[in-house]
């Protein structure tokens, strides 16, 4: 094959090819091939949830890779607003729009952490241990500082030495229960971020 191609024919062929490219005849077959990035959520698993940040409580849809089959571990790949949610109708604020980073943040707290008095390090503890300790300290503090009656002898049932900070993204039922539990203990300092 190569022997049959003379030097002259080779030079002529290259010249014609170059001229063709320079005059813009090249690449016409590629013109049809330009395509957009494939949509990356086509078969992703969709799960409805509520944005955990503020008490507006926007609805979000979380998209996960994996169809639920035993060997395909689900992995969150994208979060965006839920268009059917009456609060936000698909929109989100900058924090909500970046929820994926919040979920995947290496600094995200995933377990109860405990820093003992006088130390500067947190260590992981179990929920049982943490709740027992919180209950013990609350009980001790309440027994010591509870104000049943004020100076005039009127029953007030105040417990002002401990405060309670509750989450914002709660259901009405959870919020009701939290409020009842906190107030029935006499606690005055209470915030569930419903003010945002």
């Amino acid at each position, binding site marked *: 094959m190569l022997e049959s191609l003379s030097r002259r024919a080779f030079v002529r062929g290259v010249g014609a090819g170059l001229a063709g490219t320079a005059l813009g005849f090249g690449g016409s077959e590629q013109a049809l091939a330009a395509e957009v990035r494939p949509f990356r959520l086509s078969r992703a698993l969709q799960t409805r949830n509520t944005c955990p940040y503020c008490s507006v409580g926007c609805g979000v849809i979380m998209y996960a890779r994996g169809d639920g089959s035993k060997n395909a571990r689900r992995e969150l790949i994208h979060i965006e607003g839920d268009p059917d949610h009456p609060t936000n109708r698909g929109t989100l604020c900058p924090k909500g729009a970046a929820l994926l*980073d919040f979920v995947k943040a290496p600094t995200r707290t995933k377990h109860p952490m405990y820093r003992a008095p006088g130390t500067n390090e947190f260590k992981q503890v179990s929920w049982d241990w943490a709740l027992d300790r919180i209950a013990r300290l609350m009980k001790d503090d309440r027994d010591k500082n509870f104000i049943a009656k004020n100076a005039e002898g009127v029953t007030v049932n105040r417990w002002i030495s401990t405060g309670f900070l509750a989450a914002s993204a709660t259901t009405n039922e959870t919020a009701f229960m939290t409020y009842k539990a906190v107030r029935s203990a006499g606690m005055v300092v209470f915030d569930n971020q419903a003010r945002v």
Partner: protein
Amino acid sequence: MASYQSADVVRRSATTFTPPQVRHDQEVAKLIDVSKCIGCKACQSACLEWNNLQEEVGINTGSYQNPHDLTENSWTLMRFTEWDNPETQNLEWLIRKDGCMHCADPGCLKACPAPGAIVQYANGIVDFVSENCIGCGYCIKGCPFNVPRISKVDQKAYKCTLCSDRVAVGQAPACAKACPTQAISFGSKEAMLDLAGERIVDLKSRGFDKAGVYDPAGVGGTHVMYVLHHADKPEIYAGLPANPRISPMVELWKGATKYVGMGLIAAGVVGAFFHRVIAGANSVSAADEANAAALVDKTGGQA
């Protein structure tokens, strides 16, 4: 790139051939109502998240603008301007969502020398096809809005795609979907112009008699449009050009120079032809043949 979706391409960089269009795609547009924007940057967050990009943690220079300029990762940016209105003596805080305008006559595409690195779809979206990009940066020179940026990682140009991947499956761009104040809307270009008209009527009733839509004719109109409360002075919105045009250098280089250059090539071909006819082929003298034969003998026919 493996893909199962395509959009009809109407224009392609550095290519004279364009496939003929049988189908008629509806033109899409994004309308940014500057008067409704609160500068929350949900659009920026949503853009980074959807496009799997990360922006570096920056530093504060006394402005809410973050990052300070568009980058290869931040394809959209809230630009903040504090403007003293000389008529009312009021300080107006102008916030404009900057990014690719998806011009009908895109300067980037015109300037691009890499075949198929920049394409324009029939729906109006101007998209960069990274695998064809050679990272020359001509698109930045060609852009009347100074939008594309070259990545320091792969040396290719990046900018807003108008979420062509989402639009291809009938979804709105990530920024438009996220916007909590409906400052960003998405739909057909016609519907967006109608919406802009409604907004202008509303703004005028509130005392902004110069309210108008920004859809500059200098680039054939855009597929990202603004509603401005001071449409007579677009420059006050962080330097939005009043009359954007493709740089005359780009027009000259990709226009007249191209044809002059082709003419010179054609003249060379014609000249060579006549030289062949008049002067004849190069002949090899008997002495040359003898010398060549002697060399072959010396090396035994081995190179």
